């Protein structure tokens, strides 16, 4: 049987290739695949799993703005206690890609939730300047809060 020992290399070689090429095709495929799996989990409402998968995608590619944006979205859907982390994710995503439309919208929504309406309005204006469809969604959130505020008197 010893002459068949090289068969053990069949699984080892792909593992070595994957481990030794961190930034070329393997790793880029890896971060995209984790991201795509995260999106699937998010669609199914499994935010805990989505967070784990986005974190793995970010481990492979720390400046992955889409993953940061979705991480923020999933975190705030798990529980209110993650709002701060969620805000940090959006901020990081916007540092990497300042015109990331979805991150601007989600960050704006979070501002609305925190009562920071002026900051939310800044995000809205930026989205409007970009003719982004996300502007209308953020505007709807802002309008609803403003309408509720008017009823306070």
């Amino acid at each position, binding site marked *: *049987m010893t002459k*068949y*020992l090289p*068969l*053990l290399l*069949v*699984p*080892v070689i*792909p*593992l070595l*290739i*994957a*481990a030794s090429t961190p930034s070329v*095709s*393997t790793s880029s*495929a*890896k971060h995209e*695949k*984790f991201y795509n*799996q995260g999106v699937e989990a998010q669609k199914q409402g499994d935010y805990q*799993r989505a967070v*784990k*998968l986005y974190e*793995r995608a970010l481990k492979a590619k720390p400046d992955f703005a889409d993953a940061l944006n979705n991480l923020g979205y999933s975190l705030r859907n798990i529980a209110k206690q993650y709002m701060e982390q969620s805000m940090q994710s959006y901020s990081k995503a916007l540092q990497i890609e300042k015109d990331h439309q979805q991150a601007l919208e989600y960050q704006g929504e979070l501002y609305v939730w925190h009562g920071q309406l002026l900051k939310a309005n800044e995000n809205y204006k930026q989205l409007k300047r970009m003719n982004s469809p996300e502007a209308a969604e953020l505007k709807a959130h802002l309008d609803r809060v403003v309408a509720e505020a008017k009823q306070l008197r």
Partner: protein
Amino acid sequence: MQVLAILSDYWASFCAFALFGVLHSVCAQEPFKDTLARWISQFFVDHYWRSIYNALSFAGLYYWIAVLHWGQHPDDNVWLIDYPQPLWRALVILHLFSIALAYVSFIQSDYLEFLGFKQLWQGIRRLSRPKTSTEGLDLFGTQRLEIKGIYGWVRHPMLLAGFLFLATSGPSQNNLIFLFMYTTYMLIGAYYEERRLIRIFGEQYVEYRRQVGAFFPRLRRTPVNA
């Protein structure tokens, strides 16, 4: 340090698979079956042990190994490498071939007998009708040496089918590590299985081994005399 990381991540499934491999091999060996026959009865070993052994093996693989290996690492099912399309097509063909190989060898080894159903049925018949013939079954790998058909090409077609199936599955970390574990088991298991077959069939098996490769067909070979 990747190796250490993998060892610390997968130690539970490594240990479970090693224990499974040892138990799976030991329970198929004649000394174990002889001891079982002394403790319980020869009738039990001849008629019921094979199906119990298979049920335990299946349960062990499904509820123990798979849970510890794939179940504990749900995030490691992502493929680590994107194979080029031509290579991927070739792997898909090999994957289908492995299923066909498993099917052919399963049929040739007499699957009812391999799963232990034939022995079980005969045992039930003998219990319900004690006057039934006491002629034993001509069992594959114990009383009957299969050396024709697919067994005329390779000595361990089922193990080879398992290897090809796993090697041509998606290259995720979980699959590749399991393939490594399986290949280790395949080599050790085949070694002990051959020792057992030589003890039972003697020179006939030695001659068969001389002519037929364990996992790869020999290009230049002389026909096996049945």
